[in-house]
Protein backbone atom coordinates (compact mmCIF):
# COMPACT_ATOMS: atom_id res chain seq x y z
CA UNK A 1 0.00 0.00 0.00
CA UNK A 2 1.42 3.28 -0.91
CA UNK A 3 0.88 6.54 0.83
CA UNK A 4 0.41 9.59 -1.21
CA UNK A 5 1.62 12.69 0.42
CA UNK A 6 0.73 15.95 -1.03
CA UNK A 7 2.83 18.93 -0.19
CA UNK A 8 1.19 22.22 -0.63
CA UNK A 9 3.64 24.99 -0.94
CA UNK A 10 2.24 28.44 -0.81
CA UNK A 11 4.55 30.94 -2.33
CA UNK A 12 3.90 34.46 -1.25
CA UNK A 13 4.91 37.16 -3.63
CA UNK A 14 5.37 40.49 -1.87
CA UNK A 15 4.69 43.16 -4.33
CA UNK A 16 3.75 46.78 -4.28
CA UNK A 17 0.99 47.72 -6.60
CA UNK A 18 1.68 50.86 -8.50
CA UNK A 19 -0.60 52.94 -10.64
CA UNK A 20 0.31 56.18 -12.32
CA UNK A 21 -0.86 59.27 -14.14
CA UNK A 22 0.86 62.07 -16.00
CA UNK A 23 0.80 65.81 -16.44
CA UNK A 24 2.62 67.53 -19.27
CA UNK A 25 3.45 71.19 -19.63
CA UNK A 26 5.67 73.71 -21.32
CA UNK A 27 7.72 76.77 -20.47
CA UNK A 28 8.25 79.40 -23.15
CA UNK A 29 11.03 81.84 -22.41
CA UNK A 30 11.77 85.00 -24.36
CA UNK A 31 15.03 86.91 -24.45
CA UNK A 32 14.74 89.14 -21.39
CA UNK A 33 16.96 92.11 -20.67
CA UNK A 34 16.98 95.18 -18.51
CA UNK A 35 19.42 98.00 -17.92
CA UNK A 36 19.45 100.63 -15.23
CA UNK A 37 21.76 103.62 -15.04
CA UNK A 38 22.66 105.39 -11.83
CA UNK A 39 24.61 108.64 -11.76
CA UNK A 40 25.44 110.89 -14.65
CA UNK A 41 24.04 113.96 -12.95
CA UNK A 42 27.31 115.61 -11.97
CA UNK A 43 28.20 118.44 -14.31
CA UNK A 44 31.85 118.48 -15.40
CA UNK A 45 33.47 121.88 -15.18
CA UNK A 46 36.55 123.24 -16.91
CA UNK A 47 38.17 125.74 -14.62
CA UNK A 48 41.89 125.66 -15.28
CA UNK A 49 44.22 125.87 -18.23
CA UNK A 50 45.15 122.25 -17.67
CA UNK A 51 41.48 121.28 -18.00
CA UNK A 52 41.40 122.88 -21.44
CA UNK A 53 44.63 121.22 -22.52
CA UNK A 54 43.87 117.72 -21.26
CA UNK A 55 40.16 117.65 -20.70
CA UNK A 56 38.30 116.65 -17.57
CA UNK A 57 37.93 113.03 -16.50
CA UNK A 58 35.10 111.91 -14.25
CA UNK A 59 35.75 108.39 -13.01
CA UNK A 60 32.75 106.19 -12.24
CA UNK A 61 30.52 108.77 -13.83
CA UNK A 62 27.67 106.29 -14.06
CA UNK A 63 27.00 102.76 -12.84
CA UNK A 64 25.15 100.44 -15.18
CA UNK A 65 23.30 97.33 -14.00
CA UNK A 66 22.60 94.67 -16.60
CA UNK A 67 20.18 91.77 -16.35
CA UNK A 68 20.00 89.44 -19.31
CA UNK A 69 19.38 85.79 -20.10
CA UNK A 70 21.31 86.14 -23.38
CA UNK A 71 24.69 87.56 -24.36
CA UNK A 72 24.43 91.31 -24.49
CA UNK A 73 25.97 94.56 -25.70
CA UNK A 74 25.48 98.08 -24.36
CA UNK A 75 25.54 100.84 -26.96
CA UNK A 76 25.68 104.51 -26.03
CA UNK A 77 24.73 107.21 -28.46
CA UNK A 78 24.36 110.95 -28.36
CA UNK A 79 20.87 112.14 -29.10
CA UNK A 80 22.17 115.10 -31.09
CA UNK A 81 25.24 115.87 -33.16
CA UNK A 82 25.92 118.99 -31.13
CA UNK A 83 25.58 120.12 -27.56
CA UNK A 84 22.73 122.42 -26.78
CA UNK A 85 23.84 125.81 -25.56
CA UNK A 86 22.11 126.43 -22.25
CA UNK A 87 23.50 129.86 -21.49
CA UNK A 88 23.78 133.10 -23.34
CA UNK A 89 26.81 133.32 -25.60
CA UNK A 90 27.60 129.62 -25.51
CA UNK A 91 28.67 128.03 -28.78
CA UNK A 92 26.16 126.10 -30.82
CA UNK A 93 28.70 124.04 -32.73
CA UNK A 94 30.32 121.95 -30.00
CA UNK A 95 30.09 118.37 -31.30
CA UNK A 96 29.12 115.33 -29.27
CA UNK A 97 32.55 113.87 -30.01
CA UNK A 98 34.21 116.06 -27.36
CA UNK A 99 32.58 113.71 -24.89
CA UNK A 100 34.00 110.20 -24.64
CA UNK A 101 33.28 107.17 -22.47
CA UNK A 102 34.95 103.95 -21.41
CA UNK A 103 34.30 101.27 -18.84
CA UNK A 104 36.16 102.01 -15.64
CA UNK A 105 37.80 98.61 -15.50
CA UNK A 106 39.44 98.68 -18.91
CA UNK A 107 39.35 100.00 -22.42
CA UNK A 108 40.11 103.28 -24.11
CA UNK A 109 37.91 106.30 -24.39
CA UNK A 110 35.51 106.25 -27.33
CA UNK A 111 34.16 109.52 -28.66
CA UNK A 112 30.39 109.76 -28.77
CA UNK A 113 28.34 110.19 -31.90
CA UNK A 114 24.75 109.75 -32.89
CA UNK A 115 25.38 106.29 -34.40
CA UNK A 116 26.42 104.81 -31.08
CA UNK A 117 29.52 103.21 -29.63
CA UNK A 118 29.79 99.71 -28.20
CA UNK A 119 30.53 100.35 -24.56
CA UNK A 120 30.57 96.81 -23.18
CA UNK A 121 29.56 93.24 -23.97
CA UNK A 122 28.87 90.29 -21.70
CA UNK A 123 27.35 86.86 -21.29
CA UNK A 124 23.97 86.11 -19.73
CA UNK A 125 23.97 87.29 -16.16
CA UNK A 126 22.91 83.89 -14.83
CA UNK A 127 21.16 82.89 -11.67
CA UNK A 128 21.28 86.29 -9.99
CA UNK A 129 18.51 88.80 -9.54
CA UNK A 130 21.04 91.53 -8.81
CA UNK A 131 22.54 91.27 -12.30
CA UNK A 132 25.95 92.53 -13.40
CA UNK A 133 27.26 95.99 -12.58
CA UNK A 134 29.96 98.06 -14.24
CA UNK A 135 31.11 101.63 -13.94
CA UNK A 136 31.69 104.09 -16.74
CA UNK A 137 34.30 106.84 -16.88
CA UNK A 138 33.65 110.01 -18.81
CA UNK A 139 36.09 112.41 -20.44
CA UNK A 140 35.08 115.89 -21.58
CA UNK A 141 37.70 117.51 -23.79
CA UNK A 142 36.41 120.44 -25.85
CA UNK A 143 39.80 122.18 -26.19
CA UNK A 144 39.90 125.90 -26.84
CA UNK A 145 37.48 126.02 -29.74
CA UNK A 146 34.27 126.88 -27.90
CA UNK A 147 33.00 129.68 -25.79
CA UNK A 148 32.47 129.46 -22.10
CA UNK A 149 28.96 128.58 -21.02
CA UNK A 150 26.63 125.84 -19.96
CA UNK A 151 25.99 122.98 -22.36
CA UNK A 152 23.84 119.89 -22.32
CA UNK A 153 23.46 116.75 -24.36
CA UNK A 154 21.34 113.64 -23.89
CA UNK A 155 22.93 110.19 -23.98
CA UNK A 156 20.97 107.05 -24.74
CA UNK A 157 22.15 103.73 -23.29
CA UNK A 158 20.74 100.75 -25.19
CA UNK A 159 20.99 97.11 -24.15
CA UNK A 160 20.51 94.54 -26.92
CA UNK A 161 21.22 90.83 -27.46
CA UNK A 162 24.52 90.09 -29.15
Amino acid at each position, binding site marked *: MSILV*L*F*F*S*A*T*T*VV*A*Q*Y*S*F*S*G*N*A*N*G*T*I*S*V*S*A*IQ*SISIIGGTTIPSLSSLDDYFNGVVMSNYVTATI*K*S*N*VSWVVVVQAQNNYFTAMSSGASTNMPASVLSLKTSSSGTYLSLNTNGINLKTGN*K*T*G*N*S*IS*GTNFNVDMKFNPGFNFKGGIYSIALLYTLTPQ
Partner: protein
Amino acid sequence: MLLLLCINAHSQNQSNYIQINLNSTLNFLITSPNNIESDQTIQNALTIQVMSKASNCSIYARLNNLTYPSGFTVPSPFLKIDWTNDNSNKDYNLITAPIALNSTDQLLFSQKKMPSASNYYSYYYNLILSPPTYALVPGSYSFNILFTMTQP
Protein backbone atom coordinates in the same frame (compact mmCIF):
# COMPACT_ATOMS: atom_id res chain seq x y z
CA MET B 1 4.78 17.43 -5.34
CA LEU B 2 2.03 19.75 -6.11
CA LEU B 3 3.18 23.35 -6.12
CA LEU B 4 0.63 26.01 -5.94
CA LEU B 5 1.98 29.36 -6.95
CA CYS B 6 -0.42 32.20 -6.36
CA ILE B 7 0.31 35.53 -7.90
CA ASN B 8 -2.30 38.22 -7.95
CA ALA B 9 -1.89 40.48 -10.88
CA HIS B 10 -3.22 43.87 -9.88
CA SER B 11 -3.70 46.68 -12.24
CA GLN B 12 -5.51 49.95 -12.24
CA ASN B 13 -9.16 49.10 -11.92
CA GLN B 14 -12.48 50.67 -11.04
CA SER B 15 -11.83 50.42 -7.32
CA ASN B 16 -8.19 51.39 -7.19
CA TYR B 17 -6.88 54.11 -9.39
CA ILE B 18 -5.24 57.48 -9.71
CA GLN B 19 -6.38 59.97 -12.28
CA ILE B 20 -4.79 63.31 -13.11
CA ASN B 21 -7.14 65.98 -14.41
CA LEU B 22 -5.59 69.13 -15.84
CA ASN B 23 -7.77 72.11 -15.01
CA SER B 24 -5.80 74.37 -17.34
CA THR B 25 -2.97 74.05 -19.80
CA LEU B 26 0.29 73.83 -17.91
CA ASN B 27 2.06 76.50 -19.92
CA PHE B 28 4.31 79.15 -18.40
CA LEU B 29 5.17 82.26 -20.41
CA ILE B 30 8.28 84.15 -19.37
CA THR B 31 8.36 87.43 -21.23
CA SER B 32 9.43 90.10 -18.75
CA PRO B 33 11.93 90.72 -15.95
CA ASN B 34 9.09 90.39 -13.47
CA ASN B 35 8.22 86.95 -14.86
CA ILE B 36 11.78 85.69 -14.61
CA GLU B 37 12.56 87.16 -11.20
CA SER B 38 9.54 85.87 -9.31
CA ASP B 39 7.51 82.71 -8.94
CA GLN B 40 4.85 82.04 -11.55
CA THR B 41 1.82 80.11 -10.34
CA ILE B 42 -0.84 78.29 -12.31
CA GLN B 43 -3.75 78.35 -9.90
CA ASN B 44 -5.76 75.16 -9.57
CA ALA B 45 -3.53 73.57 -12.18
CA LEU B 46 -4.56 69.97 -11.63
CA THR B 47 -6.67 67.62 -9.62
CA ILE B 48 -5.56 64.22 -8.41
CA GLN B 49 -8.44 61.79 -8.07
CA VAL B 50 -7.70 58.77 -5.96
CA MET B 51 -9.78 55.69 -5.30
CA SER B 52 -8.21 53.07 -3.07
CA LYS B 53 -10.62 50.42 -1.88
CA ALA B 54 -8.15 47.56 -1.67
CA SER B 55 -5.91 49.09 0.96
CA ASN B 56 -4.18 52.27 2.07
CA CYS B 57 -2.19 54.03 -0.59
CA SER B 58 0.44 56.71 -1.02
CA ILE B 59 0.69 59.24 -3.82
CA TYR B 60 4.02 60.45 -5.13
CA ALA B 61 5.14 62.88 -7.82
CA ARG B 62 8.39 63.39 -9.65
CA LEU B 63 9.75 65.26 -12.63
CA ASN B 64 9.86 62.44 -15.11
CA ASN B 65 11.18 64.29 -18.11
CA LEU B 66 12.51 67.74 -18.87
CA THR B 67 13.62 69.01 -22.25
CA TYR B 68 15.30 72.37 -22.61
CA PRO B 69 17.27 74.53 -25.07
CA SER B 70 21.00 74.15 -25.44
CA GLY B 71 22.94 76.36 -23.09
CA PHE B 72 20.62 75.70 -20.17
CA THR B 73 22.11 74.04 -17.12
CA VAL B 74 19.47 72.36 -15.01
CA PRO B 75 19.58 74.04 -11.62
CA SER B 76 18.08 72.95 -8.34
CA PRO B 77 14.39 72.02 -8.67
CA PHE B 78 12.41 74.89 -10.07
CA LEU B 79 8.99 73.31 -10.52
CA LYS B 80 6.83 72.89 -7.44
CA ILE B 81 3.45 71.40 -6.77
CA ASP B 82 1.41 73.01 -4.04
CA TRP B 83 -1.64 71.48 -2.34
CA THR B 84 -4.55 73.87 -1.98
CA ASN B 85 -7.44 71.73 -0.74
CA ASP B 86 -9.18 68.39 -1.01
CA ASN B 87 -12.47 66.72 -0.19
CA SER B 88 -10.95 63.70 1.46
CA ASN B 89 -11.46 62.58 5.04
CA LYS B 90 -9.12 59.65 4.59
CA ASP B 91 -5.87 61.46 3.94
CA TYR B 92 -2.82 61.42 6.18
CA ASN B 93 0.80 62.50 5.81
CA LEU B 94 -0.52 65.27 3.61
CA ILE B 95 2.23 67.69 2.56
CA THR B 96 0.66 71.13 2.49
CA ALA B 97 3.81 73.15 1.71
CA PRO B 98 5.04 73.47 -1.89
CA ILE B 99 6.96 70.38 -2.95
CA ALA B 100 9.95 70.85 -5.25
CA LEU B 101 9.92 68.25 -7.98
CA ASN B 102 13.04 66.38 -8.95
CA SER B 103 13.74 63.03 -10.55
CA THR B 104 12.90 61.04 -7.44
CA ASP B 105 9.44 60.36 -6.05
CA GLN B 106 8.22 62.95 -3.55
CA LEU B 107 5.37 61.97 -1.23
CA LEU B 108 2.29 64.13 -1.68
CA PHE B 109 -0.06 62.35 0.69
CA SER B 110 -1.31 59.00 1.85
CA GLN B 111 -4.90 57.86 1.93
CA LYS B 112 -6.54 55.24 4.09
CA LYS B 113 -8.45 52.37 2.60
CA MET B 114 -11.78 53.65 1.40
CA PRO B 115 -15.15 52.11 2.27
CA SER B 116 -16.54 50.14 -0.61
CA ALA B 117 -19.49 52.47 -0.97
CA SER B 118 -17.49 55.64 -1.21
CA ASN B 119 -16.43 57.49 -4.32
CA TYR B 120 -13.01 58.81 -5.23
CA TYR B 121 -11.43 61.70 -3.37
CA SER B 122 -10.05 64.78 -5.11
CA TYR B 123 -6.91 66.71 -4.21
CA TYR B 124 -6.32 70.10 -5.78
CA TYR B 125 -2.90 71.54 -6.58
CA ASN B 126 -1.27 74.68 -7.91
CA LEU B 127 1.80 74.38 -10.09
CA ILE B 128 4.61 76.83 -9.37
CA LEU B 129 7.55 77.76 -11.54
CA SER B 130 10.43 79.26 -9.56
CA PRO B 131 12.65 80.45 -12.41
CA PRO B 132 16.42 80.28 -11.94
CA THR B 133 16.26 83.96 -12.98
CA TYR B 134 18.55 84.89 -15.85
CA ALA B 135 20.01 81.39 -16.15
CA LEU B 136 16.71 80.51 -17.84
CA VAL B 137 17.85 80.86 -21.44
CA PRO B 138 15.34 81.70 -24.18
CA GLY B 139 13.55 78.85 -25.88
CA SER B 140 10.99 76.14 -25.34
CA TYR B 141 11.03 73.81 -22.41
CA SER B 142 8.75 70.85 -21.82
CA PHE B 143 8.20 68.77 -18.73
CA ASN B 144 6.37 65.66 -17.67
CA ILE B 145 5.27 65.07 -14.09
CA LEU B 146 4.67 61.47 -13.17
CA PHE B 147 2.22 60.75 -10.37
CA THR B 148 2.32 57.33 -8.81
CA MET B 149 -0.08 55.61 -6.45
CA THR B 150 1.35 52.74 -4.48
CA GLN B 151 -0.45 50.21 -2.33
CA PRO B 152 1.38 47.92 0.05
